């Protein structure tokens, strides 16, 4: 990995998919230490879930290859719902590792905010399995189901989910590219201030959890998922330059190495053996750990697919960071905080960094790139020898999961 870039994530009325990708591409280009010539790119893989639905335009591979001036080089779109760009990344790795290409651009893209919330719910629900979406399941609903199953099995509650939300917001407050770069405390105090300015009666929240308990401030979306358990609707793009190991020194003296990469597939809610775990995540993790020779305890920090608060808890168990049923306790004890023993979602995660679905997989890897190259500023993981980070991306209701381990040597 010789370069990486990401647009700011957010809701942009005045930017379209091409604007966002151009922003990510230019950032990536300026991140390549010794520079590079876009004409040298051999091929391009782009993850996009469903701009077809969101902006009524499909076939984004050539649109973007023309935008950045690399047509007629081959451009291939990958789709794996919210894991679409992790699949593009994986195709790029295969293309380089096989020796077929030497220099490959991979990216991700989604433009969601031009649709209403209800339309976005409908568009995303196309990534569920047929029996779910057509009886009214939404994505918050799917994860609401998993949360009730997890609560029942392990005795956790909404209070434990709030620990995930508070931690994500604390990290995002340190990330200038995050859609919500405010802590829950900042949001709460902002609301109190505005009430005071308008001469309204002041809310009586005692602390961050008290704010999250208030259904007026934090209404249910798909109980037990409330507003602050859910990632936002986002626009954004991400991209990365992958090069063959033998020529990496032409681009940088400090590349990152892809040491483990795994992908799994899964079934619908009615067909899975457990509603508190994702089989596809476990398969992907097993593959990546096996390939790298690394163990869960070797991963110094990770980005995991926290589309909803409960998801983060399930993933950190499935990835082997914590035992089944102990993830929620680990979060409560602060082990996943920036200063904990296993920092998770240092970027703020999907929850706060934003989740332009097709851009997320490579957006997560971008955070690993920033952390491993010591570029993460105020949210830099405070470890002396930061060498190994990983990203977990999930699509649909666990239908597509990937796990990628990166190393700085």
């Amino acid at each position, binding site marked *: 990995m010789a370069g990486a870039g990401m647009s700011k994530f957010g809701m942009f009325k005045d930017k379209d998919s091409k604007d966002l990708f151009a922003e990510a591409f230019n950032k990536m280009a300026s991140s390549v230490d010794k520079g590079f010539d876009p004409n040298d790119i051999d091929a391009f893989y782009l993850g996009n879930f469903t701009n077809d639905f969101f902006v009524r335009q499909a076939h984004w591979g050539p649109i973007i290859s023309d935008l950045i001036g690399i047509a007629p080089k081959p451009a291939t779109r990958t789709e794996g719902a919210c894991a679409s760009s992790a699949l593009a990344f994986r195709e790029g790795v295969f293309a380089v590792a096989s020796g077929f290409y030497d220099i490959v651009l991979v990216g991700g893209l989604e433009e969601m905010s031009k649709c209403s919330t209800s339309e976005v719910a409908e568009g995303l629900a196309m990534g569920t399995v047929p029996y779910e979406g057509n009886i009214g399941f939404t994505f918050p*609903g799917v994860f609401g189901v998993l949360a009730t199953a997890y609560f029942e099995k392990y005795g956790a509650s909404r209070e434990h989910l709030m620990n995930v939300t508070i931690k994500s917001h604390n990290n995002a407050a340190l990330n200038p590219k995050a859609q919500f770069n405010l802590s829950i405390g900042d949001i709460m105090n902002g609301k109190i201030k505005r009430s005071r300015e308008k001469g309204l009666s002041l809310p009586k929240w005692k602390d961050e959890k008290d704010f999250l308990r208030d259904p007026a401030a934090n209404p249910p979306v798909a109980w037990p998922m409330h507003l602050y358990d859910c990632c936002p609707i986002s626009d954004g793009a991400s991209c990365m330059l992958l090069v063959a190991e033998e020529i990496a020194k032409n681009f940088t003296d400090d590349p990152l190495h892809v040491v483990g990469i795994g992908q799994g597939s899964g079934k619908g809610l009615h067909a899975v053996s457990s509603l508190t775990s994702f089989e596809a995540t476990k398969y992907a993790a097993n593959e990546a750990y096996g390939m790298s020779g690394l163990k869960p305890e070797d991963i110094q920090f990770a980005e995991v697919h926290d589309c909803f608060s409960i998801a983060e808890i399930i993933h950190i168990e499935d990835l082997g960071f914590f035992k089944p049923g102990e993830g929620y306790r680990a979060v409560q004890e602060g082990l996943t905080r920036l200063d904990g023993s296993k920092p998770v979602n240092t970027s703020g995660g999907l929850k706060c960094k934003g989740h332009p679905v097709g851009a997320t997989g490579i957006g997560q890897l971008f955070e690993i790139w920033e952390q491993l190259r010591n570029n993460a500023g105020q949210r830099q993981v405070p470890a002396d020898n930061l060498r190994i980070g990983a990203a977990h991306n999930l699509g649909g209701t666990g239908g597509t999961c990937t796990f990628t381990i990166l190393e700085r040597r």
Partner: protein
Amino acid sequence: MEARNFSDISYEQYLNEGKLMGSRCKRCSALYTPPRSICIKCHGYDMEWVEMHGKGKLVAFTCISIGPPFMADEGFNRNNPYCVGVVELEEGTRVDARIEDIDTLNPESIKIGMPLSAKFLYKEEGKHLKTYLAFKPS
């Protein structure tokens, strides 16, 4: 039973007829709801239809306040959430279903493990007939 493809189309046709149907592998006896045409246990493809009794228990659920447009058209919204969940049938398989006749504004009153029985929600008529599989407390 008549020869229908072991497909989602057949599953929905049977729902229109008020029947909850699954498929069973003739080779290894594995049972599936909704029906599968290929057995994922033994990879056999010789299946037979089995009618489910429509009794089960709630495995997991959610009460949705913000649904897609077709649910909003049915009158569901923040003040009137709908419940969907996973139901384990007496026969041992599971289905996704709407959960009815419960207090969706008070989700803590809905208990995992509660016994349920099937009911069929018929929407539209004639050739537009669409049936939602639902369950209500037994």
